């Protein structure tokens, strides 16, 4: 009797779960499994016409990707982007959140909108404007630097400056989103803590270091992880601004994957790149969580 009732309950549970499970299965598990399978073949443009000519290559694609200098170049560029652009995004959004959330700040709503606007604009439109900002002859940025006596820099045409230029664009485009999350977290910090600290004679810096940052720690971890995950997948910015140039200095892993998959139709190789990138991102996330746990102890 009791077992029967349990069985019925389990069946009901499965029935309620079924829609979600079917969706996840059809749109996540199956494609990922198919992708994994594809990454062990040399599926390419010939195989699109005649699947019979796809060959099973085992780990061949993975070995080839790891041998490809162009992949390492793309990985190096991506790590550069993540290592500099990631902290910059978080610093910028933290600074903006603190400013906008300060009790003394006026027109908070306006500033919040202004800082958040880049997030909701279309990247393609924005990048055209930024391409002009960066232009060595007509660009506002070089014009301003010229007033300081600095020679014009060909931001997007110089292999050394192109990546930093794209980082600045990406930080500007994305910091508003993380800022919003941090503002929400800041509003949850109890006001009494600040009052108590002020009574004890803590200055602004001490309150930031000993109250605000510890209170924000879980949020900062979350923000850090989503920022890094997002930045490992950087694609649109270099794709529209530089197409990976000059000298492939802004080619990123996802851009390289896109080229392999959708320009040159090496779909097997492209899926192998996707799985390698997934492994790298997973490792980076685990390291971040481990660091955070270490800091808590």
């Amino acid at each position: 009797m009791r077992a029967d009732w349990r069985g019925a309950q389990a069946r009901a549970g499965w029935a309620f779960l079924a829609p979600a499970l079917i969706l996840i299965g059809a749109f996540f598990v199956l494609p990922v499994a198919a992708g994994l399978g594809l990454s062990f073949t040399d599926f390419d443009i010939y195989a699109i016409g005649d699947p019979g000519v796809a060959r099973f290559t085992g780990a061949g694609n993975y070995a080839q990707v790891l041998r490809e200098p162009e992949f390492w170049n793309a990985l190096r560029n991506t790590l550069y982007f993540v290592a500099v652009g990631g902290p910059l995004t978080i610093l910028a959004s933290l600074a903006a959140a603190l400013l906008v959330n300060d009790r003394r700040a006026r027109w908070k709503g306006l500033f919040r909108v202004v800082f958040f606007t880049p997030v909701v604009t279309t990247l393609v439109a924005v990048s055209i404007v930024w391409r002009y900002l960066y232009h060595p002859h007509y660009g506002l940025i070089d014009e301003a630097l010229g007033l300081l006596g600095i020679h014009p820099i060909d931001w997007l045409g110089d292999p050394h400056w192109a990546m930093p230029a794209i980082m600045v664009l990406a930080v500007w485009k994305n910091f508003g989103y993380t800022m919003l999350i941090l503002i929400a977290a800041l509003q949850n910090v109890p006001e009494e803590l600040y009052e108590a600290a002020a009574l004890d004679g803590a200055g602004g810096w001490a309150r930031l270091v000993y109250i605000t940052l510890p209170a924000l720690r879980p949020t900062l971890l979350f923000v850090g992880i989503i920022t890094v995950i997002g930045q490992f997948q950087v694609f649109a910015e270099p794709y529209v601004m530089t197409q990976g140039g000059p000298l492939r200095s802004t080619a990123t892993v996802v851009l390289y994957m896109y080229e392999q998959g959708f320009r040159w139709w090496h779909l097997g190789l492209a899926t192998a790149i996707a799985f390698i990138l997934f492994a790298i991102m997973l490792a980076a996330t685990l390291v971040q969580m481990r660091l955070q746990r270490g800091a808590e102890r």
Partner: protein
Amino acid sequence: MLFYRRDLLARAGVATPPVTWEGWRAAMEAVEQRAGPDQYAILMPVNEWFPLMILGLQTGSPLLDVTSGRGQFSGPQFRRAFDFYLDLFHRGLAPPVSNNQVANVYQEFGRGTFAMYITGPWNLGEFRNRLPAALQEAWSTAPLPGPDGPGRSMAGGSSLVVFRQSRHRDAAWRLIEFLSRPGQQARFYQLTGDLPARREAWRDSALAADSGARAFDEQLQRVVPWPKIPEWEQITSLLQDEAERAVRGVVPGDSALAALDRDVDRVLEKRRWLLARARADRPAGEGAR
């Protein structure tokens, strides 16, 4: 096809467009001497592959050996084209920039930032629409100069194809036939500005009177198609990347071409395998697919 500023060439003492590479380079030197700072004789963006590919076709380079599936870029013919190409950058006649940095080709052409530009007939209408009225008399088009006389160019554009497995092959073929009639092609040109592929259509009065198009008519007598293989897209990217490295002086020209052949051979591995399989499967005399 060479689009050029007639006024800038005339100012430099070049009355007629050059015909040989030698004359071309001399004309560019002359234009460059009169040019201001940040002005160049020619624009060949380092992220465009076709100017270099055309120079290679002009010297008679096969680019690839399609039957054996191997790159032929380090051969002497392509080598000659590559040397000529690199030399234009090293002499400062062409700026080592991509067309991202140019921002607006038409505007810069109008400003005289460069006096020549290699592009195709689709730009005839653009140059007419986007250049100011005052400059309309100041530019023209000419067939490309060649290594030792009027040069070849690339038969670009798109192809009409019929799928082997289509259920409507006859209808598709009839459509292609219809679109290829000289009358239809002339009409198409009137509607879109797309130049006709058939010689007969060029006798159409509108085209015969069109000065910008006349140079294309002449060039069409000397065109070569590029190898029709699916890997072509990737090969052009490889060529572009290696050429950019050589232009910017990261690697010497020799090593760039050797690296290019190595990469192209790797890209064509699948094709060689398919060709070998087809040869093994089929009796001799029947070509590969």
